[in-house]
């Protein structure tokens, strides 16, 4: 859906409502994705979803309704359902007035070619992956995807903001009988995906992982590649840096402001405007999204705040909020770790004994306050000795506190990647070398 069509829907709905104040949020999403496995395309799909959410407000009573149908009859039904709900709820004294127009920074989010790419181009790219796998007698599985998402928010306080993002991504696993190697990349510009590099990296890791040896669980120095780092940060984002978690003293950083909480080599910001990020210039309340310093040279500065929590905590909202009534708080979804000065190869060369980790799998929180998490290594885990990769090792389970791991950082890499994990993310991070990382058990492969 184009921005003009969204604006027209917003105008109509705000006119139809009998609620004194109201807000409309519209999203339109199109994705094409080609999935392959066993050296063959297995799923080739496209999705087109429009949706509208209407929030009606009578004083301190608020209610929302939404639909993926955007014809007039459906839109009218959505308005009246939202009003029905708003009339039924008890008043919520924590609600804030809807926000009017603010000044927003310009942000590059959308590349036409990424949005317009069809299944023929994706098939050609996947063809390259399958051909490369067959040439090395490997089995491959993965995806090539392109998507475009547009959102718009409008309300009776005069707000109308819209933003479009495009995204292309590939993720490739290469397998021998007893090993796997994985690599991925993503960018808003489909032409900036170095498919050959991704293929080569996955192949290299798969071949090097052949005949893995088991090693004993215990504490080891690790070099985590960006995808593994991103995975750890995902838990820090929700449990540590969400302003509501800080305010409710659930965060591992509650009461630690301006204190050294991690290694001084670590500086962490949330910066949607970073060239490798793919965020939006406002949040779901319409607040301009700010670049926020979360941790500076190891010192905890502050988290991110929605308007409601900011008011209670006597902070400034940072533009990371969800729609009201928001009980989840704010999420730093565009985190960036400041790079160091070593390449990944230099980091490996400087490691005397330790483990190189490509990726983590199925991580989860064990202790929400200390932010202890557990998960498995996956698709490329290697023993490093005297600066060289010696041999592949069988996958292991780690059980480790995230703040503690960041305290034990020894080196920060210089090459940044926008990396996500099985359960989300999309953070711009370098590889990290971490001392005393705890592996608690092993598995059979």
């Amino acid at each position, binding site marked *: 859906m184009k921005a003009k069509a969204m604006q027209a829907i917003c105008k109509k709905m705000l006119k139809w409502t009998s609620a004194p104040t109201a807000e409309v949020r519209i999203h339109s999403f199109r*994705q094409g994705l080609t999935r392959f*496995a*066993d050296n*063959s*395309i*297995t*799923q*080739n*799909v*496209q*999705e*087109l*979803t*429009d949706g509208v959410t209407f929030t009606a407000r009578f004083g301190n009573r608020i*209610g*929302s*309704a*939404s*639909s*993926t*149908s*955007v014809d007039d009859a459906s839109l009218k*039904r959505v308005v009246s359902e939202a009003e*029905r*709900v708003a009339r*039924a*709820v*008890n008043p*919520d004294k*924590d609600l804030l007035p809807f926000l009017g127009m603010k000044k927003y920074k310009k942000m590059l989010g959308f590349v036409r070619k990424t949005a317009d790419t*069809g*299944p023929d181009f*994706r*098939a050609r790219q*996947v*063809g390259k992956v399958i051909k490369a796998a067959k040439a090395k007698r490997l089995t491959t*599985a*993965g*995806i090539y*995807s392109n998507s475009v998402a547009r959102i718009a928010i409008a309300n009776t306080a005069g707000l109308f903001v819209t933003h479009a993002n495009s995204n292309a991504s590939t*993720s*490739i696993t290469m*397998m021998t009988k007893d090993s*796997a190697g994985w690599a991925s990349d993503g960018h808003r510009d489909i032409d900036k995906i170095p498919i050959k590099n991704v293929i080569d990296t996955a192949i290299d890791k798969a071949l090097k992982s052949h005949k893995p040896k088991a090693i004993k669980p215990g504490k080891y120095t690790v070099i985590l590649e960006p995808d593994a780092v991103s995975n750890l940060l995902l838990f820090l984002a929700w449990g540590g840096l969400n302003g509501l978690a800080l305010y409710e003293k*659930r965060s591992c950083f509650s009461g630690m402001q301006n204190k050294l909480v991690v290694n001084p080599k670590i500086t962490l910001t949330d910066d949607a405007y970073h060239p490798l990020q793919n965020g939006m210039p406002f949040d779901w309340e319409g607040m301009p999204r700010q670049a926020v310093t979360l941790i500076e040279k190891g010192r905890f500065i502050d988290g991110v705040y929605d308007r409601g929590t900011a008011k209670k905590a006597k902070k400034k909202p940072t533009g990371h909020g969800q729609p009201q009534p928001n*009980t989840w708080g704010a999420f730093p979804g565009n985190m960036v770790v400041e790079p160091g000065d070593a390449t990944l190869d230099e980091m490996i060369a400087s490691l005397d004994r330790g483990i190189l980790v490509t990726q983590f799998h*199925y991580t*989860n929180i*064990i202790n*929400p306050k200390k932010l*202890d998490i*557990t*998960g*498995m290594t996956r698709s490329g885990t290697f023993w490093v000795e005297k600066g060289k990769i010696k041999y592949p090792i069988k996958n292991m*389970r780690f*059980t480790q506190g995230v703040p503690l791991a960041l305290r034990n950082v020894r080196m920060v890499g210089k090459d940044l990647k926008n990396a996500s994990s099985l*359960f989300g993310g999309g953070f711009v991070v370098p590889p990290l070398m971490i001392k005393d990382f705890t592996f608690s*058990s092993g*598995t*059979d492969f």
Partner: protein
Amino acid sequence: MKKLCNIALTTAKAKRATYADIRVIFNTVEDVSMKNGRPDVSYREINGFGVRVIVNGAWGFSSSSKVAPAQVRKTTLEAVEIARQAAKFQRKPIRLAKEPTYVDFWATPYIEDPFDVPVDEKLGLLSEIDKILRRNKKVINATGNLHAWREHQWMATSEGSFIEQILLRSGCGYSAETSNGKILQKRSYPCAFGRQCVTAGYEYVRAAKLIENAARTRDEAVALLTAPVCPSGKRDTIIEGSMLALQIHESCGHPTELDRVLGHEANYAGRSFITTDKPGKLKYGSDVVNIVADSTMPMGLATFGYDDDAVRAQRYYVVENGLYKHYFTNRDLAHHAGEKRSRGCNRAHGYSKIPMIRMINLSLLPGDWEYDDLLADTEGGLVMEMNKSWSIDQMRINFQFGCEAAWEIKNGKKGKLYRDPTYQGKTVEFWNSCDAICNNKYWHPWGVVNCGKGQPGQTAEMTHGCAPSRFRNLQVGIAR
């Protein structure tokens, strides 16, 4: 609706599709939630259709939220083009296992439509629970949710099936989160992660004893703050259904999905240690372990008349007397398991996603133990309840679970309370260490509502029935 569906089928046929189907779905969801007295109510309609075709031996799928004749035609043509592109890199043409065609209507039985219960009545119930939970100052967050979900779907296939189904779900749940500034604890009811869901009407919520359990839930959450950490070591452990359900899900359900076995999830959710040479040979568990797949079971979240391949719902053993038997399959992959008919496990997340193999309801059959006898027989052991954290490797061998609470077993009763219990093990060893399962009085269906799989990501729901069971010499407390 038949007319609309026919547009897809005739358009696909004209473009030489050898198979086509369309699913039109009108989905309505109502969530009534409360956190610390603040209401949050949302009403959602998720409407759309998805078209699936086989052209040149390959699948193509396209979906749209715009349910209108012109869009159905356009989307079908897109699906055809997508299939043509896929065919270029398809090793073998798709083969669909035979299934009779059906013209049928199927609906979830219920007594009281949850959408007919007024929002203010639901908020009143949540408010009453909220007051009980927050009566202790140590409770920093009290959350509650009442959930209603209806899916009205029509499916038409080029083979002649036309199936209309109405699925209805109701859910409810709450939790109390406590803190003393240093430690964070939580107790939930009836289960963790927001709510317990079933296919039924609001009668389920009325019978769930929500008010009756609120004070206990709060008090246990507070007591956990001063409870010692669960000890580490090897212990005989009774795992309650509220934890065991997820154990069944992760360590039996996922590795049983045939697409995982064949490597289709190798890049994402992962593969399976139960390779195609294992059915009929692998001693998956001890002799008392019987695990049944069943999309016909009352109240199951994966209970339906027909799956998204238009295959009729079925019930069969996955594990019988400890022996591993059968996978979850669909029409296009069943032959890889040497089977002639699909077991009816092809399911999609709404209209917008392509169906794929999903576990259906999967339950551990009850044994013959009385709960009190089992406690008395497990002196010095532990009881663990309600899942809090889960993690398992991509082959589904090494797992580690955390629970909300544990108790020592002393003098044949639940004794001292422990916080932060975890246990860790390997799937086959674990199920072979099971030597006692409680009887059907203690057997409950537990819903899983957040099962993720596939790229693009899809969420599915299913139910795992089980009763408290004992596992010998379990490695507990490894997280320390």
